[in-house]
């Protein structure tokens, strides 16, 4: 258990070790010039995206989970679609649409004869713009986890509150929301970690954050140590956040006290309230999926005949297999760690699991380097050993193979699965474990025969989140992949970074479409897993 966790924390530890060097002259320079900007921008981005995703994700989860209104069945799964769009892609599409040189502003200028100083238009490529973009593609994380929590909530609790005279708002704000807190916090902290690790969007928008700073110091000033130190600062920050989150819910218990549950009737929303409910779901869907995917489709229609060739299917297959393999592997690991922690809630185990869970806030490139260095060291020592004993060179066994890549995915995306699994486990009464054990079940049997069926929704959520994340993942894939191996994300990036956005649209759209299928399937499965059905 601890071993697995330490292994997964290896990349992060490598970063720490690299950072354990004397502080160089670069720091003086950073403090004098840009560090305060990085700090302020990263904080604002994190807070903004956290608030934004809560405001969008939680109402949507409550409405589709507990209420009934026109289009509810459609929204239930459609609201997940934005998560299939990589953040930097949505940034490109909205910039293409709303920028000064884009069609919208150009048309306005032509109609009214304006020049640059005659009107005001919100600037997409700015910090608020970055918050908006990341909120649009990340709110599904909060939505998913919140919805799973609302669905797993016992109907009895809500009925009791109703019988005590609480109206729908009180039931939502006073009962359901506080009960769903572990899931909400899990969702928001995932989102915030992802926002902190984002590079593509903030870099394109010219917003200086910790992430862009790390790259600037490392690539521009050629100072890997200072870059690792910046990354460590970022990690300590995340670690403090996670610890605070743990402390805040230490005493609370969130599991149900009764096993007798049945499906609560949906609250019908009609007339004006129904209309508002539709709007609350329609707006994020339009802004987060329909419009950007539409722009991609328009671009792709123009460029596909030129850029799509026989390699396209190959890329798609690579992306799908890699994402599926990684998702399965990571889910198993998350279950192992989450359950291990439940069995032996010792400080060391907890710390190890927390440590393994830090990877998500680290930019993918940093994780990749953290994988590359120890793996190359292992290869070197195996090679040296084989030469000394057998006179043969084994060369590279791990570096530059899919194993290194899968390992990097585990280190980076484990927290996604772990958050979901843990949030689910906290809602299962410990007495259930005790009962099963008393009846002679081994710990493993408890996990497979008791927890797994109950957790189905949470597990599928975890699987889906990781699958889509890996599908979109770029930096680690770019650095660690073997020869002649490309994915849709790599291809999209290569074209987009060569500033051929329209050419990249076909591949970006393929990522989106590859993500949509699983999103729909799993959403249905989660729906079926609803308590009492």
């Amino acid at each position, binding site marked *: 258990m601890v071993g697995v966790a330490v292994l997964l924390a290896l990349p992060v530890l490598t970063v720490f070790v690299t950072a354990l060097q004397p502080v160089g002259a670069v720091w003086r320079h950073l403090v004098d010039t840009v560090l305060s900007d990085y700090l302020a921008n990263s904080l604002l981005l994190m807070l903004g995206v956290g608030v934004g995703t809560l405001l969008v994700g939680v109402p949507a989860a409550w409405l589709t989970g507990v209420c009934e209104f026109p289009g509810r069945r459609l929204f239930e799964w459609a609201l997940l679609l934005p998560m299939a769009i990589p953040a930097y892609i949505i940034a490109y599409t909205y910039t293409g649409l709303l920028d000064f040189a884009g*069609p919208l502003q150009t048309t306005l200028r032509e109609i009214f004869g304006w020049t640059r100083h005659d009107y005001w238009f919100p600037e997409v490529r700015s910090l608020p713009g970055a918050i908006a973009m990341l909120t649009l593609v990340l709110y599904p994380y909060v939505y998913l986890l919140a919805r799973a929590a609302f669905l797993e909530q016992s109907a009895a609790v809500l009925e009791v509150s109703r019988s005590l005279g609480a109206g729908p708002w009180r039931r939502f704000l006073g009962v359901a929301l506080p009960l769903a807190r572990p899931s909400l916090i899990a969702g928001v902290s995932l989102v915030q970690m992802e926002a902190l690790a984002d590079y593509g969007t903030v870099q394109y928008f010219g917003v200086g954050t910790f992430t862009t700073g790390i790259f600037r110091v490392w690539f521009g000033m050629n100072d890997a140590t200072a870059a690792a130190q910046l990354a460590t600062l970022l990690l300590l920050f995340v670690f403090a956040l996670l610890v605070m989150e743990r402390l805040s819910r230490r005493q609370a218990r969130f599991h149900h006290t009764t096993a007798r549950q049945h499906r609560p009737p949906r609250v019908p929303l009609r007339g004006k309230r129904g209309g508002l409910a539709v709007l609350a779901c329609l707006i994020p869907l339009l802004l987060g999926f329909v419009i950007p995917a539409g722009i991609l489709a328009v671009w792709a229609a123009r460029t596909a005949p030129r850029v799509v060739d026989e390699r396209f299917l190959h890329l798609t297959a690579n992306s799908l297999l890699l994402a599926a393999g990684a998702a399965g592997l990571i889910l198993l690991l998350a279950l192992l760690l989450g359950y291990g922690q439940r069995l032996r809630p010792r400080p060391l185990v907890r710390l190890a699991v927390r440590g393994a869970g830090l990877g998500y806030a680290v930019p993918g490139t940093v994780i990749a380097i953290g994988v590359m260095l120890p793996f190359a060291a292992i290869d070197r020592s195996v090679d040296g050993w084989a030469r000394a004993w057998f006179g043969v060179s084994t060369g590279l066994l791990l*570096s530059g193979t899919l194993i290194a890549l899968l390992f990097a995915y585990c280190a980076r995306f484990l927290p996604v699965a772990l958050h979901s699994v843990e949030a689910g486990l906290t809602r299962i009464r410990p007495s259930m474990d005790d009962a099963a054990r008393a009846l002679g079940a081994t710990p493993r049997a408890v996990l497979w025969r008791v927890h797994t069926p109950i957790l189905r929704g949470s597990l599928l959520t975890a699987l889906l989140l990781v699958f889509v994340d890996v599908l979109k993942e770029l930096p680690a894939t770019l650095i660690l992949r073997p020869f002649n191996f490309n994915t849709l994300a790599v291809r999209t990036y290569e074209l987009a970074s060569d*500033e051929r956005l329209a050419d990249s649209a076909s591949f970006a759209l393929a990522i989106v479409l590859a993500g949509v299928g699983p999103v729909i399937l799993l959403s249905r499965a989660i729906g079926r897993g609803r308590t009492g059905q």
Partner: protein
Amino acid sequence: MPKLSNPRVLLPVLCLLFGLLTSPLLAAEDVNVYSARKEDLIKPLLDDFSKQTGVTVNLVTGKEAALLQRLQSEGANTPADVLLTSDAGRLVAARQAGVLQAVQSAALAKHIPAAYRDPEGYWYGLSVRARPIIYAKDRVKPAELSTYEDLAAPQWRDKVCVRSSDSIYNQSLVAGMIVHHGEAGTEAWAKGLVANFARPPKGGDRDQIKAVAAGECDVTLANTYYLGGMVNSSDPAEQAAAAKVAVFWPDAKTTGVHVNVSGAGVTAHARNRDNALKLLEFLASDSAQRWYADVNNEYPVNPAIPPSATLESWGTFKADTLNVAKLGELNAAAVRLMDRAGWK
């Protein structure tokens, strides 16, 4: 003895087999390339090379600093034979890191001018990119433009668009300025330029050109191949934007236009050294050099190659004669300088 079917035995064995299978098989007629050039900008040439010579090219692309790190950490075990980068500074860094070896060949010496290669043969430039001023034809007369230095003058207040100083192109330009004007002089210039920005830096080179065309600013700095890509774009809007701007070659009477090269070197531990050299020679050959001009809109390093129609339309220019290796050495100083000047 535990059985093979025991997962505790089977798993590591499978992992090992898998690793062996997926690590590149180092057959004799192979050459393995780490490329910081995007697949689209190099693969067609590599395919031609394979067709001509029968040597299979295995390719992995990535960012320069990451590929360099990969080479360094793999050490003597590296499968890579050739490192391709899109920036001379990285080749200098690679040489300093000890991951390249010197190779000599009459063909390379003949096709590549001395300013565009390492004096000892550790790396060779393969294509040249220039970063001139690009201006709005309807609002700026070429007579108003003269030098990079002049863009910091007050008459350009609120009229300059430039991309972020995160871009290696700007870092390398500023490194060149440091060589010519010293740190203090360059910093004063950078502050003046920042004061003239029409908007905070954002987007890529094409975005700057589009902003000039749309009237958000009047002048920008951009690499010519991006303009070339827009001229030959499938998007009518990009073509229209490209038609509204023109190229001005600055510093014609002084130090010349800032240029940098893409290039390649043979790795220190190359197992297919001969094929690696063969590949470099191919990339410097006439047909490959012509491809750089015709398809990528870059300038060939070989001066004997005639320019493509697009390149010809921009006219000729005087390039900065400074050895491009210097740009790499001053890159960190340039980044710090831009931080101090407030160039985001």
